[in-house]
């Protein structure tokens, strides 16, 4: 009986899902919608800075453009990059940041740039989860 009560699914309001989606799509927007201004600037700002510093250092974003069986190796980093939401989508639409040419790869900061871009997406997934938890009332 007690176990069954514990296993009962927790009710999550629909707005929490929308807030999470907004937080993913535009870094910081989730916390803005929750009126957590300071947290939005800190957490969202960190993602924006990480993303643009990554691009400025010559890093590249991953997609599924590789041919053959190697394409499977592109999936994990692409999932990480996709965490930046609209930043990734806009870059993909305008075709900026996806080139993996030798000149770019020769830059000393190339790998740093890749890492910053990957981490920007992963940090935004954390932002998204935080915004979701706050909207669902699980966190203050």
């Amino acid at each position, binding site marked *: 009986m007690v176990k069954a009560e514990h296993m009962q699914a927790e009710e999550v309001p629909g707005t929490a899902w929308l807030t999470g989606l907004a937080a993913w799509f535009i870094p910081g927007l989730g916390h803005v919608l929750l009126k957590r201004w300071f947290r939005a600037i800190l957490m969202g700002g960190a993602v924006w800075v*990480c993303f643009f*510093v990554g691009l400025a250092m010559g890093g590249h974003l991953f997609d599924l453009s590789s041919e053959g069986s190697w394409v499977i190796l592109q999936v994990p980093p692409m999932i990480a990059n996709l965490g930046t939401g609209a930043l990734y989508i806009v870059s993909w639409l305008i075709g900026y940041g996806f080139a993996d040419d030798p000149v770019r790869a020769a830059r000393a*900061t190339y790998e740093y740039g890749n890492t910053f871009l990957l*981490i920007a997406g992963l940090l935004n997934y954390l*932002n998204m989860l935080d915004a979701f938890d706050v909207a669902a009332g699980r966190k203050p």
Partner: protein
Amino acid sequence: MRHFLVMALFAGLASIVFGAMAKDSTRERLIYGLKVFAEFMVIGLVLSWILYFIP
């Protein structure tokens, strides 16, 4: 020097997010963020010295 600054920037950005989403009070968050930052820096420096001696 540039490598160190990039590492510090990386540690700073990551620790901001980690610190902001952890703990309950502002003071605890600040302390946790600083702790994460210090951990990133110390581990980064230790790893770089280990790799320095590996040919």
